[in-house]
């Protein structure tokens, strides 16, 4: 076969500077990009929450219009779930998983870069809606038919649909990448049942993502067609049942809840053993309970729909399955406590966050069991009681664990320790403020305050609790700012960290902080769980594979080379998304832009597949 000469440029060679970040395929750099972007989005969602709490601080306030309020809570939910918590999890997956596996990168480094840039494209697109005609305003759950053109003629819902689709592409690409990485890139001897628990939870989360996202993708395509091309999937006037949307949304939405919490559980399962100086208690059960939670997560979606009128049989079944899922969750909590039992617990900030997580998750879990009782839930559904519950599991659960994870792995990532004194103040401020903010919502909910109302009259018995919640929310905001201060200050001038500041148990602590680009000079051989601990205290050395690369101090290690094409492919998706968004309003222009975007992505993928590899020995790359 004759070879055609391709006009594809050589791989970029940018060891430093902005271009080195744009073209990077290093999982550690991509992890940092994910983390920083997700944190900016977390601040954005937090500001939206501040607006909400300011508006509700007192009855009958007029700080924002009802329309803007509805946009605020829609964007707060969408942002926190899709742009903050999920990508913060992805940041940890990226940075930590190859290190825990004893690998030099993920399985598909360029796909990994593509995931990040596509995530960024979705995040930018969603937030551009604020200045391009108004943000989405139908809630993060987007119930039909409130999202239909008839009841929602603006562009906000289209922004929501398309950015969620783009974010879905990013999540799916990342999820496939991590499944393949975890299955295939483990160091010799790292059997599945020897993997660190964070890696296990990442594997489960990635599989959940792969199975859950197609459902919302289909639903969003149907909704897009309803809005842009006049189909009637969710249009009641044409005979459709809007309940279909709810089923599709929550069949995705409930596994999504576990996508948000399982990585947090994985992080906590790393922190607690390290600071207790004991292995996790009942490792197989902790793994298995994660698997069961993920599996049963598919059987409980209708507990979001107890008041929709599915009938007593369906409500009973979903009440029982929902109660059942409390069992594996409870088991995890008992195993964490048993891990600390007879341990030697050191309350570094990371450990405080992990134990704080257990406290708050117990409360959130118990209020979850209260909700599972469909009959009594008829009084709590769509009230502030639910808002309290979900923030105990998503803030008290996910966010607390993620913050703890940052305190835990910060020295590995930056080579510097975060300040412990500030850290402890930070923890107590966040922990106390979190309870002041969200606990009173149980009361306002039981006193009959519905969710998603932009105003309320005084005399309903809601004034006090809302004032307290708002005060707590601003304290919480201060706590997050203190965290940000600690991160920035410590990254610049924190105490220099050793390779193993916490006396860790897993492979990432066996290499320098921060790790070299190739992570492991020589790939270790693993003989059991907690291999680094076993090497330190049990005399089980992780002898490198004989004849492996890296025996010359890393010089002969060939790392994946940077590439321009992932970001170009993402830009194409971003442009194409805008084309689809405006098809209805600007028909042929929209189609044209969509085609241009698709072409850019296609060219990028083509070039990506065929781009040459630079001579590894020309000194430009390892």
């Amino acid at each position, binding site marked *: 076969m004759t070879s055609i000469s391709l006009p594809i440029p050589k791989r970029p060679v940018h060891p430093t500077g902005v271009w080195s970040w744009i073209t990077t395929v290093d999982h550690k750099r991509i992890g940092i990009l994910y983390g920083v972007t997700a944190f900016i989005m977390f601040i954005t969602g937090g500001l939206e929450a501040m607006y909400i709490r300011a508006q509700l601080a007192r009855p009958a306030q007029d700080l924002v*219009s*009802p*329309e803007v309020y509805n946009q605020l809570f829609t964007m707060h939910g969408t942002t926190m779930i899709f742009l903050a918590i999920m990508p913060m999890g992805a940041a940890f997956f990226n940075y930590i998983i190859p290190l825990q596996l004893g690998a030099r990168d993920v399985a598909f480094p360029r796909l990994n870069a593509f995931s990040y840039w596509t995530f960024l494209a979705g995040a930018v697109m969603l937030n551009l809606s604020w200045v391009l005609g108004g943000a989405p*305003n139908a809630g993060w759950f987007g*119930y039909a*038919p409130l999202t239909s053109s008839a*009841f929602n003629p603006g562009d906000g819902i289209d922004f929501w649909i398309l950015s969620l689709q783009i974010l879905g592409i990013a999540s799916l690409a990342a999820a496939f990448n991590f499944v393949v990485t975890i299955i295939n890139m483990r160091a010799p001897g790292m059997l599945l049942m020897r993997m660190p628990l964070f890696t296990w939870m990442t594997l489960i989360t990635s599989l959940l993502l792969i199975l859950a996202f197609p459902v919302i993708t289909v639903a969003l395509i149907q909704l897009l067609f309803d809005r842009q091309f006049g189909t009637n999937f969710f249009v009641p006037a044409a005979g459709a*049942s*809007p*309940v279909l949307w709810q089923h599709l949304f929550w069949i995705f939405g409930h596994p999504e809840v576990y996508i948000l919490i399982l990585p947090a559980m994985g992080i906590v399962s790393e922190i607690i053993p390290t600071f*207790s*100086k004991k292995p996790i*208690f*009942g*490792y*197989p*059960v902790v793994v298995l309970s994660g698997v069961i939670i993920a599996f049963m997560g598919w059987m409980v979606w209708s507990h979001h729909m107890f*008041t*929709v*009128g599915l009938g*007593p049989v369906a*409500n*009973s079944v979903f*009440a*029982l399955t929902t*109660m059942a899922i409390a069992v594996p969750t409870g088991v995890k909590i008992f195993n964490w406590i*048993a891990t*600390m039992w007879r*341990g*030697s*617990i050191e*309350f570094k900030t990371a450990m405080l966050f992990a134990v704080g997580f257990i*406290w708050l998750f117990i*409360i959130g879990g*118990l209020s979850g*069991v209260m909700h599972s009782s469909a*009959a*009594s839930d*008829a*009084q*709590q*559904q*769509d*009230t502030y009681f639910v808002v309290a519950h979900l923030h105990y599991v998503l803030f008290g659960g996910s966010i607390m664990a993620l913050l703890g994870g940052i305190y835990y792995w910060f020295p590995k990532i930056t080579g510097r320790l975060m300040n412990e*004194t500030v850290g*402890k103040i930070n923890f*107590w401020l966040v922990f*106390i403020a979190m*309870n002041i903010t969200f606990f009173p919502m149980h009361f306002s909910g*039981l*006193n*009959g305050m*519905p*969710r*998603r109302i*932009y*105003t309320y009259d005084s*005399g*309903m*018995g809601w004034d006090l609790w809302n004032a307290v919640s708002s005060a707590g929310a601003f304290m919480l905001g201060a706590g997050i700012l203190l965290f940000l201060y600690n991160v920035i200050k410590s990254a610049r001038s924190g105490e220099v960290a050793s390779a193993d500041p916490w006396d860790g148990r897993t492979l990432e602590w066996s290499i320098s902080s921060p790790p070299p680009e190739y992570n492991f000079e020589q790939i270790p051989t693993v003989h059991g769980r907690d291999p680094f601990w076993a090497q330190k205290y049990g005399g089980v050395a992780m002898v490198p594979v004989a004849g492996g690369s890296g025996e010359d101090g890393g010089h002969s290690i060939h790392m994946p080379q940077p590439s321009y094409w992932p970001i170009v492919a993402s830009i194409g998706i971003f442009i194409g998304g805008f084309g689809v968004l405006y098809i209805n309003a600007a028909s042929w222009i929209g189609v044209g832009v969509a085609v241009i975007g698709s072409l850019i992505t296609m060219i990028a993928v083509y070039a990506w597949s065929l781009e040459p590899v630079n001579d590894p020995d020309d000194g430009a790359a390892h």
Partner: protein
Amino acid sequence: MSTTSSRSKIYLGVLLLLSSFALLTGCTPDDPQSTFDTVGPVSRSQLALFYWIFWAAVVVFIVVGAVLVYTTLRFRRKPSDAIPNQTHGNTPMEIAWTIVPVLILAVVAVPTVLTIFDNANSPEPGALTVEAVGRQWWFEFNYPHPTDPDEQVVTANELHIPVGEVVNINLASRDVIHSFWIPKIAGKVDMVPNSANTIWIQSDEAGEFFGQCAEFCGEAHALMKFRVIAEPREEFDAWLLAQAAPAIDAVEPLAAEGQALFEGNDAGCWACHTISGSAKSRGSVGPNLTHVASRGLIAAGIIKNDQAGLRAWLTDPCEAKPGNTMCNGAAVYNDPDKALDEKQISALVAYLRSLD
């Protein structure tokens, strides 16, 4: 940070949480939408179930919390600590703490399922049946006509029921999903387009109870309320009979002027509102106003139905309820040339006040 101070902080934290839980039982039943002040069998069974689960949860919280507190205090690192024994698990214990939650959940599950079925099926399917229709952002209530089986009595935002009797409600929606909720009488059931949901309610006390839409339904969701008026059977019958009667043409001059305006094209009210007895006013977009003066509140439970309230509402409906159909759709509020002047508003108020 010294050991003692963080230890005391942990105690403080635990104390705070426990006292918060204790507070929960003191939730104020006087509040108009409190789920603790139950007046009917449905809300009562829901509250009983709630308490049952709540106390189970409190027990679990105290037990697990106590173990967690003990563990984190007892096993804090001491300088003398050696490397702890590297225990990997204990199968009998792990089986135990899997089975115990299952048993606790069974205790919760049985009454849950029983209550679900009790509340789903009306104990008296033949009792008074009212149709409740959710609209953006108000409630329409359709009663069977007391004398003419082919007719309905249509009213809005105030649901009258006979005290101590089962009332079956058929729930419908003309636009988006709403939710029908009267916290003191019954937990909510959604009003879903194309879906024949039902709920049964009963109030054992006479009085006025608050209802509110609980499913986010768009811009003015927060302002979609209604009232339930539970009254003795005779009063209820009399009320229904009065509501069934057509409106009488206005006689007082200002009111008559208002009626002319209502039925004329300058104001155009007739296009959206029905006034039974008027040949012109047959609209079905907005609430039926046949006996609007008999209602205590207007605009779905948010404005007092008196001179001042009606005047404010007719002057600027967008102010009180942003985004509502009258504010967005009626020419008098969108075309400055057609805007109502003070005199016209006075006339309309007089007419509406005459519709008792």
